[in-house]
């Protein structure tokens, strides 16, 4: 189908059935603008657009991702494909490279509908998966393609005893009820050929009309979001509202720092002011808005002007950016975000400063391919957040931690313990043990071929909770001999712990996982990174483990956290233990030699090493 034809369909589809009064302005202006616009922005022909190719066999399904966690979309889908259908190579199902900037959609061809349902039943990143009946630049185009859709796809739902309904969804902008209604009616007027009765509550087939808009231009053209900012050199630039707020906050911070104010001083001052206000009878009243009629009328006029301006801009944007893709598709299953929400931290019995929020925990369990009947351990269990989804998915869990206060509950602060969280959700409790996961505390037997199906953890890197291992911080702890003199049985003796350096911790974690995992088992862990200077070299490698995925969740700039998924692909050979150890500590050694050289590295691989060193140094800084 050629481009020009599609373009004309756009106008027909939109203008044809929309209720007249609401959209007259829109349709009037369209006729002149559209044709050129569509030609400029979309691929040359429809066949070239991977989202709309009429190739029904290769692109039977349409996956719609949630907006959050874009870096995890593909990774999670791959893990779930492997878990539910045993598909190791996801390229046979969908083409990653076909994903378009700004659109959370991909066409795929799953092996079966059961597989689609199983994936959706666990996915945090998928909003829904549909079976595509037709796609096009407009509803008319999509409908035209629908007539070529294989009969076996539509017939089962076209029977007279099957109930159905039509629903409308837009991606990229909100559509009003009127527009939604108009969309629905246009499809009904085309007669989709379903012979059964309509049921809005429990239909056998939900036929969706999905309009996708390119979101970026719309957001930028919204004048309400545009603010001016005067730079130090006197230039005025246009920035977003959010950016302005951020800069104002930074400027205020600078100002406070210049005055020598610390956060504590500011808080103190605030409290003092509040107390003073209470004594003198309430805070000083805010300046009253101008009461005189002219000023009010001016304000009102200003508001109306802004509103008009906004509406105009919105209409203009809408006119230029018609939906770039329209799908007619049957919904097969929706994603499981609600599952994570039912385990939200907000209602959790036992929490700590680093409790992992439930969505990310579920993503991690998916990445680890945790399934019923597996054995899973979290060696840094903390408040048990990561074991919740693993238990939900039916795995038997163990949790280790070096902090006894956490495992036992913090007496005096709260009586809650990790077990309370699991009792709250009526889940089987994990088996807890106080454990040092560094090589010095190897208390777990390592049966031949490994024992765990998955190791899932969020190691404490020191951003909000410091990592510890057994050892003595000479400055703080009494010598063992002093305690031993009072008798070893004495329970008052506390095994001392010392800080655990991030790079070393990761190297040990990876090596321990290689020993303890079964072949095919997965290690999933989080690593805080500086997004501006991250290099891959700092991820420890291991000959027995293969890096499967790494995805970054951006946090407060420039920080981010990277989720690393490794799969054990070769059995651990104890004769090579020293070589393995050397390999996992390669990055550590790079940084140590660099420190010894005082930064002057050897000129071969100098660039790579320097980058690694910078990255590691940053990591250390984060950890501090």
């Amino acid at each position, binding site marked *: 189908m050629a481009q020009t034809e599609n373009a004309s369909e756009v106008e027909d589809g939109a203008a044809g059935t929309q209720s007249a009064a609401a959209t007259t302005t829109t349709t009037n202006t369209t006729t002149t603008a559209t044709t050129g616009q569509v030609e400029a922005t979309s691929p040359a022909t429809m066949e070239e657009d991977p989202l709309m190719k009429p190739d029904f066999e290769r692109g039977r399904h349409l996956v719609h991702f949630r907006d959050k966690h874009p870096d995890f979309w593909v990774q999670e889908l791959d893990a779930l494909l492997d878990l539910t259908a045993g598909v190791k190579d996801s390229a046979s199902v969908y083409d990653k490279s076909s994903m378009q900037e700004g659109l959370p959609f991909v066409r795929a061809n799953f092996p079966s509908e059961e597989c689609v349902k199983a994936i959706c039943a666990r996915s945090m990143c998928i909003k829904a998966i549909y079976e595509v009946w037709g796609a096009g630049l407009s509803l008319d185009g999509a409908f035209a393609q629908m007539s070529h859709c294989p009969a076996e796809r539509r017939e089962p739902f076209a029977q007279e005893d099957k109930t159905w309904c039509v629903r409308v969804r837009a991606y990229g902008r909100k559509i009003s009820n009127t527009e939604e209604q108009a969309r629905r009616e246009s499809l009904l007027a085309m007669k989709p050929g379903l012979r059964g009765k309509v049921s809005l509550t429990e239909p056998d087939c939900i036929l969706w009309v999905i309009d996708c808009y390119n979101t970026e231009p719309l957001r930028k053209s919204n004048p309400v979001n545009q603010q001016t900012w005067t730079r130090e050199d006197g230039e005025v630039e246009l920035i977003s509202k959010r950016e302005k707020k951020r800069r104002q906050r930074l400027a205020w911070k600078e100002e406070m720092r210049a005055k020598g104010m610390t956060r504590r001083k500011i808080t103190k001052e605030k409290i003092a002011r509040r107390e003073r206000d209470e004594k003198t009878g309430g805070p000083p009243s805010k300046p009253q808005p101008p009461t005189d009629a002219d000023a009010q009328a001016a304000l009102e006029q200003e508001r109306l002007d802004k509103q008009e301006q906004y509406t105009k801009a919105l209409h203009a944007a809408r006119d230029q950016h018609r939906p770039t893709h329209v799908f007619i598709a049957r919904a097969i299953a929706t994603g499981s975000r609600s599952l994570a929400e039912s385990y939200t931290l907000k209602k959790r019995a036992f929490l700590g400063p680093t409790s992992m929020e439930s969505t990310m925990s579920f993503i991690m369990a998916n990445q680890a391919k945790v399934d*019923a*009947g*597996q*054995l899973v351990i979290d060696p840094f269990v903390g408040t048990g957040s990561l074991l919740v989804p693993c238990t939900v998915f*039916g795995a*038997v869990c*163990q949790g280790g931690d*070096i902090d*006894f206060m956490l*495992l*036992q509950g913090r007496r005096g602060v709260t009586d809650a*313990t990790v077990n309370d969280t699991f009792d709250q959700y009526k889940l*089987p*409790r994990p*088996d*807890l*043990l*106080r*454990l*040092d996961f560094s090589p*010095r*505390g*190897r*208390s*777990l*037997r390592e*049966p031949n071929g490994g*024992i765990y199906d998955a190791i899932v953890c969020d190691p404490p890197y020191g951003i909000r909770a410091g990592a510890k291992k*057994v*050892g*003595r911080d000479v400055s703080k702890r009494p010598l*063992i001999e002093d305690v031993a003199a009072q008798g070893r049985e004495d*329970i008052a*003796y506390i*095994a*001392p712990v010392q800080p655990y350096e991030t790079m070393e911790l990761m190297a040990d974690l990876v090596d321990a996982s290689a020993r303890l995992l079964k072949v095919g088992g997965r290690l999933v862990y989080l690593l805080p990174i500086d997004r501006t200077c991250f290099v891959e070299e700092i991820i420890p490698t291991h000959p027995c483990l293969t890096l499967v995925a790494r995805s970054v969740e951006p946090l407060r700039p420039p920080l981010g956290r990277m989720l690393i998924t490794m799969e054990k692909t070769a059995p651990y050979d104890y004769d090579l233990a020293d070589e393995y150890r050397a390999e996992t500590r390669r990055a550590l050694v790079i940084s140590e030699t660099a420190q010894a050289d005082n930064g002057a590295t050897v000129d071969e691989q100098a660039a790579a090493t320097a980058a690694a060193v910078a990255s590691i140094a940053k990591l250390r800084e984060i950890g501090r």
Partner: protein
Amino acid sequence: MKLLTHNMLKCNVKGVNNGYPLKIEVTTKEIRETEMNPAFLQGIVEKLEWPVFRAAAAQLGEEGLPEAVTPELLEQEDFLKKFHRALLEVVVVEGALICPESGRKFTITNGIPNMLLNEDEV
């Protein structure tokens, strides 16, 4: 501490060559019922040190486990129930684990064994 975990723990004090199996000293125990998962039991059985598990179960009052496990047994509901109960439902709440070689005592409080070593033991 469940017997599954006991089966996996060993003593790692410096100089100890054979810190397995750890002897159990029970002060209090309890039974926490959980749902049985036959697939888990069938998968874990080859990873367990069966004689160690059997002895530990007997000590905790879970008699009647056979000396060896055969594939036929793993299909029997009766056996699986017993196996599940001993492996995952019996919990040692207070007590200790004792190293067979050095006699080092690891205490169990609130169901959590403390496997941390003292600084002169690592």
